[in-house]
Structures are given as structure tokens and as C-alpha cells.
């Protein structure tokens, strides 16, 4: 009798598989892409593989919605499906969809063989999804590695450009260094509490004396994740990597892995109630906002500019982390969603304009865009206004929730730093808008027509940006449910 129960416990049940359904879907489609790739010649591979990948990411989206109805723990308490994980699964799958749509045109224009590319995007998405539902530090580490390795390779995909390889190697070296930090932190945490399960660790930390090792462990994990989200002072890789990597990939890796890493941070920092987090985060948030925005002021390359801007946005996000859990969690989640919408949109425009070999990526190349392509210019303007945080865009409510959460936690100093920073930030985003509308193009570079895939990608990000800016209620309520679930 005893034997059978042991056996049933040792075999995963159907429910366990449901809890990782989106990951399974992504893995299957990623493998289909890899199998199909050698069977096709280069020309037909571009489209077909892209469509397969698109179907994969859409199926993952549906799987997420299906999975949402079966919340709970799976695989011996290693993954947990709750509204938090569903939120991030949805976000990652949506970003992946938009990035795949953007990549059709880009891959063709750059003449890049597409096979591994789409497979890697799907595998990366797999890792990021798993990061948000894993509640076991070792599993989190594995998911982090899956996502990171995929993005290391994706960053170097412009094989003919030296700068792209440089970006890939830089990202790889610094990235592995950072994951090593994370792993070390996990090890120390295990030493301090005797477990790698977040809930057990949380209970242990709440119940009694907090050992000094736990502090060090949390700090090291924070360093590792801080690198992944490009928070200062672990941000120096960002501009170089973003400059070299293919534009759609930058759109991808500045949003989805970032969201996933922030998801882990949220789990670790809040659910495990990490000790002494407020001041650590306070300093990093203030540094990221300031260094990011000041750095962006002097950039002439649009990709570098947005790289610094993403550092700054990581800083705003961390402001939410410094705030109390009840308001901070939904604020951070909302911020990630709207940042994903506007940034993926902005990079979709950039990858369209960049042209073969990414020749057109400096501010000068955007001169007169308002006249050359009113539609693209208007879209990019809306995304930039959202990044500034102007009302009726998602970026406004994102900042709004973050700052009001911080105010409710009485972090007035941090809010003042944040508000001043957003004023500084409006300058460099505005610079791009000014260039587009108020300068004449020096040479009339004809712009290719907007193809269907890119149009769809732009439309999705635009609708999402505006939706979050006009009716933020539903998304925020959903995010707030997480806070309630964790509060018990």
C-alpha cells in the first residue's frame, strides 16, 4: 500500500503538466522549427519558420489562458501557477509574438538565415516563462540560464557585423559572471535556511533570528538579477550590447527577460520577505534612474539612447520594489506591462527604419521622418511620449502607480529623485521627436512600405500602450490580486 502512494507521488500527474503547459508548447514549437530548418532552402525558410514560431507563441498564449484556470503547485512544489505567474506568462508570450512579427521583415532585409533565430526566441521565452512560475531557487537558476543562453546567442545574430559579435561576447561574459553571483547567493541561502524553496525560506526567515548568511545570500542574488535587469551599478554592458544586437532582439531582451528577472526579484524579495531590502533597493533605484537618464542625454545613436532609457526605467521599477508589498507589487507589474508595450513598439519602428546592415540608427537618420512617413513618426512619437510618461499612454499610469506606491510607503526622497529624473528624461525623448518633426531630411532616403507583420506588431503595441493609458483598471486589478494572494 505504502509502495503505491510513493509511486504515485514520484510520477508527475496530469495537473503537473498543466502547470508547465505554456513551457511545453514553446519547447515543442521550438523543436519543430529546428527540425524543419534543415529541410528547407533559405528563401522559403524565412516565412515558413516565422509562421511556425508565431503559431507557437500564440499557442503559448492560449495555453496560458487555459492554465490560468488551474492555479496551484506542481512538480513537487517547484512551480506555482497563480495570477502572478499567469500575468508574466501572458506578458512574455505577447512580447514574443510581437517580436516574431517584427522579425519577418528584419530577417529578410538583413539577409539572416532564420532557422535557429526563431527557435532561440521560443526557447528564450520558455526560460522567461519558467522564471516567473518557479518557486524553487535551483529551478529558477535553470530557467534563468535557459533564457540567458538564448539571448546571448540572439545578440550576436548579425554575424557579418563585428559589433554584433562584440555585443554577444560581452553579454555572455558579464552575464555568466552575474549568474554565478546568483548561484552563489542561492548556495548561501541554502546554507542559511536549509532549503531552496522560496516558501520554506520565507517561513524560516519570518520565524526567528535571521542568520547573517541570509543577508549576504539575498545581496548576491540581487546583484545577479540586477545585472539581468540592467540596474545601476550593474548596467555598464547595456549600451554596448543594445547597440550591437539586432534591433528586434533588443526589443525582445529589453522587455521579456527583464520582466522575468523582475518577476524573480518580486518573488524573492517579497514572498521570501528578504531582510534589509529597502535600503539596498533605494540606493540602486536612485542610481539607475540618475545614471540612465544622464547617460541618455548625450547619445546620438537611437539604440544606445533607448539602452540608457531602459536603465532609467529599471530604476523607476525598483522604486516600486522599495515600496510596501501591497502597493508595490501591482505597481511593478503594471509598469512592466506598459514598459513592454511601448518599448517593443519603439524597437519595431527602429528595426523597420534601420535598413540593411542597420545603417540608419543615428538621430540624424530620423530627420524629417514626420514628412517621409507620417504614420511611423506618429507611432514612434506615441511610444516616446509614453516613455516620458504623458497622460493617455500606459507610461503615465505606470509612473503614477509606482510613485504613489512609494509615497504611501513614505519614500518621499526617492519620489522626488524619480520625479526630477522624469523631467530630465523628457528632454532626450523630446529630442528625438523634435528631430523627426522639426528638421528636414538631409538626403531623401526612401522608406520601404510597412509590411503586414510589422504593421500587426505596431498595432498591437500601440493598442496596448493606449489601452493601458486610458483604462488601466483591469490590468491593475489583476495585478493587485497577486498582492492579495501573497498576503495571506
Amino acid at each position, binding site marked *: 500500500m505504502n509502495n503505491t502512494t510513493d509511486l504515485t507521488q514520484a510520477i508527475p500527474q496530469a495537473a503537473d503538466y498543466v502547470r508547465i503547459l505554456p513551457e511545453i508548447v514553446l519547447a515543442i514549437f521550438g523543436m519543430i522549427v529546428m527540425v524543419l530548418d534543415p529541410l528547407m532552402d533559405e528563401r522559403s525558410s524565412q516565412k515558413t519558420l516565422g509562421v511556425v514560431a508565431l503559431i507557437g507563441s500564440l499557442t503559448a498564449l492560449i495555453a496560458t489562458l487555459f492554465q490560468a484556470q488551474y492555479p496551484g503547485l506542481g512538480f513537487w512544489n517547484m512551480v506555482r501557477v497563480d495570477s502572478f505567474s499567469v500575468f508574466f506568462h501572458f506578458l512574455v508570450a505577447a512580447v514574443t509574438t510581437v517580436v516574431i512579427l517584427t522579425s519577418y521583415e528584419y530577417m529578410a532585409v538583413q539577409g539572416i538565415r532564420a532557422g535557429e533565430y526563431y527557435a532561440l526566441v521560443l526557447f528564450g521565452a520558455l526560460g522567461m516563462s519558467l522564471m516567473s512560475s518557479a518557486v524553487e531557487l535551483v529551478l529558477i537558476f535553470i530557467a534563468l540560464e535557459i533564457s540567458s543562453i538564448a539571448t546571448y546567442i540572439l545578440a550576436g545574430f548579425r554575424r557579418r557585423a563585428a559589433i554584433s559579435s562584440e555585443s554577444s561576447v560581452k553579454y555572455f561574459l558579464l552575464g555568466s559572471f552575474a549568474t554565478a553571483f546568483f548561484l552563489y547567493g542561492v548556495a548561501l541561502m541554502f546554507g542559511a535556511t536549509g532549503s531552496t524553496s522560496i516558501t520554506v525560506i520565507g517561513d524560516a526567515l519570518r520565524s526567528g533570528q535571521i542568520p547573517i548568511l541570509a543577508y549576504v545570500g539575498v545581496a548576491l542574488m540581487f546583484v545577479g538579477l540586477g545585472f539581468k535587469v540592467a540596474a545601476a551599478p550593474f548596467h555598464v554592458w547595456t549600451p554596448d550590447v543594445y547597440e550591437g544586437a539586432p534591433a528586434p532582439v533588443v526589443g525582445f531582451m529589453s522587455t521579456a527577460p527583464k520582466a522575468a528577472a523582475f518577476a524573480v526579484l518580486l518573488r524573492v524579495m517579497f514572498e521570501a520577505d528578504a531582510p534589509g531590502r529597502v535600503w539596498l533597493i533605494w540606493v540602486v533605484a536612485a542610481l539607475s534612474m540618475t545614471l540612465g537618464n544622464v547617460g541618455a542625454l548625450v547619445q546620438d545613436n537611437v539604440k544606445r539612447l533607448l539602452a540608457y532609457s531602459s536603465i532609467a526605467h529599471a530604476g523607476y521599477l525598483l522604486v516600486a520594489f522599495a515600496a510596501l508589498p501591497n502597493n508595490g507589487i501591482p505597481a511593478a507589474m503594471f509598469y512592466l506591462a506598459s514598459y513592454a508595450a511601448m518599448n517593443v513598439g519603439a524597437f519595431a519602428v527602429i528595426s523597420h527604419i534601420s535598413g540593411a546592415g542597420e545603417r540608419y540608427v543615428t538621430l540624424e537618420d530620423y530627420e524629417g521622418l514626420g514628412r517621409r512617413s507620417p504614420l511611423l513618426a506618429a507611432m514612434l512619437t506615441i511610444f516616446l511620449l509614453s516613455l516620458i510618461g*504623458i497622460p493617455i499612454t500606459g507610461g503615465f499610469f505606470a509612473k503614477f502607480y509606482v510613485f504613489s506606491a512609494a*509615497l504611501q510607503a513614505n519614500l518621499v526622497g526617492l519620489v522626488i529623485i524619480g520625479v526630477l529624473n522624469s*523631467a530630465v528624461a523628457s528632454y532626450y525623448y523630446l529630442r528625438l521627436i*523634435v528631430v523627426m518633426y522639426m528638421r528636414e531630411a538631409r538626403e531623401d532616403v526612401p522608406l520601404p512600405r510597412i509590411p503586414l507583420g510589422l504593421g500587426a506588431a505596431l498595432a498591437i503595441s500601440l493598442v496596448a500602450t493606449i489601452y493601458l493609458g486610458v483604462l488601466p483598471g483591469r490590468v491593475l486589478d489583476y495585478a493587485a490580486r497577486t498582492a492579495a494572494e501573497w498576503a495571506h
Partner: protein
Amino acid sequence: MSNALDNSMLTLITFIPLAGAVLLMFFPRRDRDIRVFALVVSLLDFVLSLHLPVHFQRGQTGFQYEINHLWISNPNIHYHMGVDGVSMWLVVLTTFLTPLCVLISWKSIHERVKEFFILLLVLQTALIGVFVALDLFLFYFFWEATLIPMALLIGIYGHGRRVYAAVKFFLYTMVASMFMLAAILWLYAKTGTFDFVSIQSAIRNGQVENFSGAALWLFLGFFIAFAVKVPVFPFHTWLPDAHVEAPTAGSVLLAGVLLKMGTYGMLRFNLGLFPEQSRSNASWIMVLALIGIVYGALVAMVQPNMKKLIAYSSISHLGFVVLGIFSFTQAGLDGATYVMLAHGVSTGALFMLAGILYERRHTYEIAEFGGLAAPMPVYATFFLFIVLASVGLPLLNGFIGEFLVLSGAFRDRAVYGIVGATGVIWSACYLLWMYQRVFFGKVTHEVNLSLPDLSGRERAALWPAAVVALVMGVAPLLWLNAIDPAVQTALAPFAQLASRMVGR
């Protein structure tokens, strides 16, 4: 029936221009149709807005035509609109000026016409929204929304250094309004609502924790946003640049309405939410206002550029408004509101007149003109009329407001009244001197001999302004009987403050 109409009136007035702008996006690029359509939309909005004063319950305090729906539940944001006597007239001023702006831009805008009128209509929606919003969030939303169309109007359709002016305008106001946002967020964090009326009563009943410690900073947060917009003296440097480079319609709306957002904000929010802080900070604010009056006038006097002269005269006139508001007297606030309206009409008309000249000669330099009364007699007459209105000639609109403001300022402290009164003299000096240099004497430049006089369209744009300037000067009660109760409400806490001080 009429109740349902009353409830949706403000929504209609606010969003009709936006709806027009959206329709315009789908218009084919036939410039004439676009202009006519923009004119029709703006006229329709004006006619609708006349519903407000016609059915306004005079003598009643509190807000009218209120509409209050939940917009977003978290944070607790309501779609709450309503007007009192002050904001109602500012709404009508906006809808009155916009059709004139369309008329005056008929020919002078010939490139990217569609985008121009779209921006103009979007700007109108945002401006009206600022005046009718009673939810602090909604207010901030419209406040920021005015920024983008205005900056684009300056930056795309302006003159020489337009980009510099547009960016400067944007950054100045953006940075300043950040402070207001911080203050609004603080209030929300402590009261859990953005509703102006609820926050006001919470503050008055002392239900806001830590309020006494933060009140000064909150007051300043609001004040700095409004002071940059007005502009109050040390924050004024963006204004001349923006005005000089802006297209005519941009200048008209900038001087006519945008600047009033600042003074309206002071009246509604600084006085409404922080009466004690307003009282204790009034002295330095009034000194700044006086500096603005005199400094603006003196700088205007030496301007060789007509548009810059009018821009500096705005700084001077808006100084009167601030002076009136912070005198905390019935006359002062009545007068301040009246100056806002009168300045909107007459300075709007002055910018239109300057624009008409620019269309003909492509310069604003006063030295380029002289003796224009001979080739352009009708133009000269209109110009004189508006100049006299702006100077404050009795029986025209400028006089009433300035008189009331000065009498209020006198009552507060005689020296304020005396220094302020010099502003009236200065304004006569610079405007009449400019008039003399442009219109009298011999024609100094050959080209000016053949300048055509006003066309029918230009007259259509100027007549309404001139008529309103006259009516406002002759029958001020038409306006003041609605303004009075609103001002009394704003002043009520000050009477209590005063009696409390006497009680001590």
C-alpha cells in the same frame, strides 16, 4: 430632458473639437475643405458653449453642469467636470477664440494644413478640459495634454528659431508641472481621492494627516507649475521666445487661453486648497506680480519687434491678474477674472493684427513699418481700437478689470495699488508709442505703399473681437454677476481666517 442636456453639456463642449480632429484625420488632403470643416467644428463648439452662460444659475454658489462618473477605480479617479462663474467664462473665451484662430490661419498656413488644424482642435479640447475638470487627476491630464499640440504648433509652423522655442516651452512647463504632480500624488496618498471638492473639505475639516507640515510644500508645488505658465516674473523667459516664433493662431491661443490656465489654477487650487498658505505667502507673490507688471512694461517699451512687444505686455497684464488674486478682496478677484477675459480678447486680437501684417511683409520689426494708416485705413482703425482696449480706456474691456484689481490691491496695501497703477501708464506708453511708429508719419518703406487693406475674411476674424471688447467695457455686469458668487466662494475661508486673526 433639459437636465440630461445640462449633464452632458460639458462633455460635448470639451470633446467636440477632438471628435472633429479625429474626423479630419480621414479627410483627403484638400486644404480648403479642411479649413471649412475646422471652422464649422469650432463654430459649432462656440454656439454650444453659449448654452452655459445662457442657462447658468446666477447668484448660486458651487459648481453647475456637474457630471461625475467613476473612470478608474484604482486609483480612485472620477470623470468629474463642472463649472463655476470663473471657469465658465474661460471656457467660452476658448471657444470664442478658436474660430477666430481658424480664420486667421486660413492663408498663412499653407503647408501640412491638415496636421495644423488637427493640432489646433486637439489643443482646444485640452484647454477646455483644464477649465472644467474638477478631479485633480483629470485636471493634470488635460494640463499636460495642452503641452504637446502647442509645442508642435510652435515647432512645426513657427518662424526662424521655432525648434528652440518649442523645446524651451515644453521643458519649462513640463519640469514645473512635475512639482504639481508630486503635490497631487501626496494629496491622493493621504486622502484617497482626487476629487477637488472632497479634498477641499478634507483639508478644511483637518482630516488630512501631517497636513500642516506639508502644506507649504504642496502650496509651492502647485504654485510653481502655475507661476511658470502665467508667467510670474523670474519664470517668464520662455514666453517671449514662444510667442515670437509661434504661428499667429498659436500666439492667440497661447496668450489668450494658455496663460490663463496658470492664473485660473492659482485661483482654484492655491486659494481653494491652501488658504492659509496663500495668505502667508501673499506678500512675496504680490511683489513678484508688481515686478512683473513694471518689468514687463519697461521691457516691452524697448522692443523693436512687434510680437515681442505684445508678448512682454502679456507679462505685464498677467501681473495684474496675480496681483488681484492675491489681494484676497472681492474687487481684486473679480477684477483678476475680468482681466483674464479681457486680456484674452484684446491680446488675442493684437496677435491677429500682428499676424496679418506678417502675412503681408514677413517681418515683425517695427522699424520696417511707418505711415501704414494711409495704405491700410481699416486695419489702422481696428488696430487703434484694440490698442485702446488693451491700454485700459474707459468703456472698453481693459479698464474694468484693471480698475477692480487696483482698487482691490489698494484695499490690501496702498503701496501695491500705487505701483500697480503705474503699469496702466506704462502700457499706454509702449502701446501708443508702437502705434505711432507703425501707423503715423510718412510711409518710410516703398513696399508698404501698396499693402492691401483687410480682406473680408480678416475682418470677419477681427469684428467679433472688437465688438466683444466694447460690450465687455460697457456692460461688465453681464459677466460679473456670474463671476461674483464664484469669487465669494473662493474668498469665504479668507473671511474666516481674518476673523480668527482678529479674535486672537
